[in-house]
C-alpha cells in the first residue's frame, strides 16, 4: 500500500506530516519511507543512521571524435539542444539529454555510442528495525527529477506499506510520485494562497482517481475557505496542526513531535488510522 504526501507548493509542512505518519505507523508495523522530493530531500535529517548508496544513471551519447565527419545530423535531430554541431566540434550538454537514443540512430558513420551519465543517487538506511528509508538525491543542476523519482519507486515493493514524500507543486516530477498510489494526503495552509494551490493540485490528483485527504497546517481557526472547499468536495480533513512556535522549533532541530511530545502522539495516531482506512487497508 502506497500513501503519498503532497502539497500544491513548498513549505506547507509536508515533511512534518510524512515524518510523523511514518514514525507512528512504524510503532505498529514495518514501514518504508520514500523521499521523492529529490531536489531537496530532507527526511533523512529526522532519521539519521548508517547509509548505503548507489548511483542512478541515464544513457547519454558518447561521440568518437576521430570518426565524426561533422555532418550535422545529430545536432539537427536533437530537440533538446543536448548536442549541437559547430564548425570544428560537436558540443554536448549531457544535463539536457533526454536519453532518447535518436542521435546515435541518425549518425551516418556510427560515431555515437552510449555512456552512463550520473543524474543522482539513491540512499537507503534502516533507522529502526521497522523503518526503512529510501532517499532520492538529484544531482545539482540536473533536469531529471522524474527519472530520479522513477528510480526511487523501483526500490519500493507494492507489498510494503510505503509513505512517499512527493515534490511540491504539480510538476511532471510530482506526477511521477503520485501515480498509482492508494491515497494522497494533501498538506495545505489556511490562507488564500494555500487554498489556491490546494485547488490546483486537487484537480490533478482527481485525474489519477486517487482517494484524497487533507491536513491543514498552521491552523489558526480562521477559516479562509480551505475547510469549506473540503466540505464541498467531500474531502476528509484528517488533521489540523495549530500554529505553534514550539512545533516549528522542534521540527527545525530534526525532532519528531509525535515521538518526543506526548501531546502530539494521539492526533497523529488518529490521522494514521484514518489514512490507512482511506487507503483501503
Amino acid at each position, binding site marked *: 500500500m502506497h500513501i503519498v504526501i503532497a502539497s500544491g507548493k513548498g513549505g506547507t509542512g509536508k515533511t512534518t506530516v510524512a515524518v510523523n505518519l511514518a514514525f507512528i505507523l512504524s510503532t505498529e508495523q514495518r514501514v518504508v519511507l520514500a523521499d521523492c522530493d529529490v531536489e531537496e530531500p530532507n527526511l533523512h535529517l529526522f532519521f539519521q543512521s548508517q547509509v548505503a548508496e548507489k548511483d542512478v544513471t541515464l544513457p547519454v551519447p558518447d561521440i568518437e571524435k576521430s570518426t565524426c565527419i561533422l555532418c550535422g545530423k545529430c545536432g539537427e535531430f536533437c530537440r*533538446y*539542444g*543536448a548536442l549541437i554541431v559547430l564548425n570544428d566540434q560537436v*558540443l554536448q*550538454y549531457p544535463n539536457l539529454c533526454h536519453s532518447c537514443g535518436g542521435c546515435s540512430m541518425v549518425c551516418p558513420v556510427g560515431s555515437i555510442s552510449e555512456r552512463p551519465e550520473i543524474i543522482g543517487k539513491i540512499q537507503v538506511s534502516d533507522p529502526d528495525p521497522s523503518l526503512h528509508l529510501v532517499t532520492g538525491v538529484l544531482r545539482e543542476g540536473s533536469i531529471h527529477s522524474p527519472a530520479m523519482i522513477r528510480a526511487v519507486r523501483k526500490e519500493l515493493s507494492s507489498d510494503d506499506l510505503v509513505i512517499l514524500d512527493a515534490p511540491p507543486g504539480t510538476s511532471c516530477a510530482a506526477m511521477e510520485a503520485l501515480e498509482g498510489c492508494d491515497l494522497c494526503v494533501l498538506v495545505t495552509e489556511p490562507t488564500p494562497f494555500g487554498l489556491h494551490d490546494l485547488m490546483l493540485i486537487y484537480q490533478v490528483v482527481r485525474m489519477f482517481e486517487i482517494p484524497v485527504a487533507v491536513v491543514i497546517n498552521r491552523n489558526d481557526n480562521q477559516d479562509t475557505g480551505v475547510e469549506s472547499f473540503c466540505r464541498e468536495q467531500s474531502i476528509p480533513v484528517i488533521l489540523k496542526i495549530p500554529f505553534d512556535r514550539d512545533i516549528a522549533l522542534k521540527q527545525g532541530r530534526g525532532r519528531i513531535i509525535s515521538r518526543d511530545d506526548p501531546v502530539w502522539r494521539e492526533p497523529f495516531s488518529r490521522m494514521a488510522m484514518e489514512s490507512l482506512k482511506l487507503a483501503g487497508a
Partner: protein
Amino acid sequence: MKLAIPASGPTLDDQVDNRFARAPYIILINPEDGETSSLANPYAQEGGGVGPRVVQLLVQNQVTHLIAPRIGGHAETALLATGITVFMWEGSGSVSSAIELYKAGKLAAMTQTS
C-alpha cells in the same frame, strides 16, 4: 562578415528583441555591403535547450558577429565555442538603430573570460 540580431519582426524597422534564443526573428546583415536577410526562428516557441540550438543555427548561417541581450548559460558556452563575437545590447531600439550603434563602435564586445 555576417552580423546577426534577434528581432521582434523580419525587417530593419522592427525592434531588437530582448530575448536571444526566443526572439521570433533573427536579422542577418553584412555591414560591409549592406545586404540583409531575415530568418524566422524555428525554436522561438519550443521548450528547453533552445539557446544551444539557436547558436547552431547561427553557425549554419555563417554568422561571425552577434548583437544580443541577456544570454543564458548554455547559449553562452556554445557561443564561446564558436568564436562568434558577441556585442551586448542594453535598452531598446530598432534593428537599424542597433546597426548604426555597431558601425559607430558604440557597442561593447562581451569578454571571453566571463
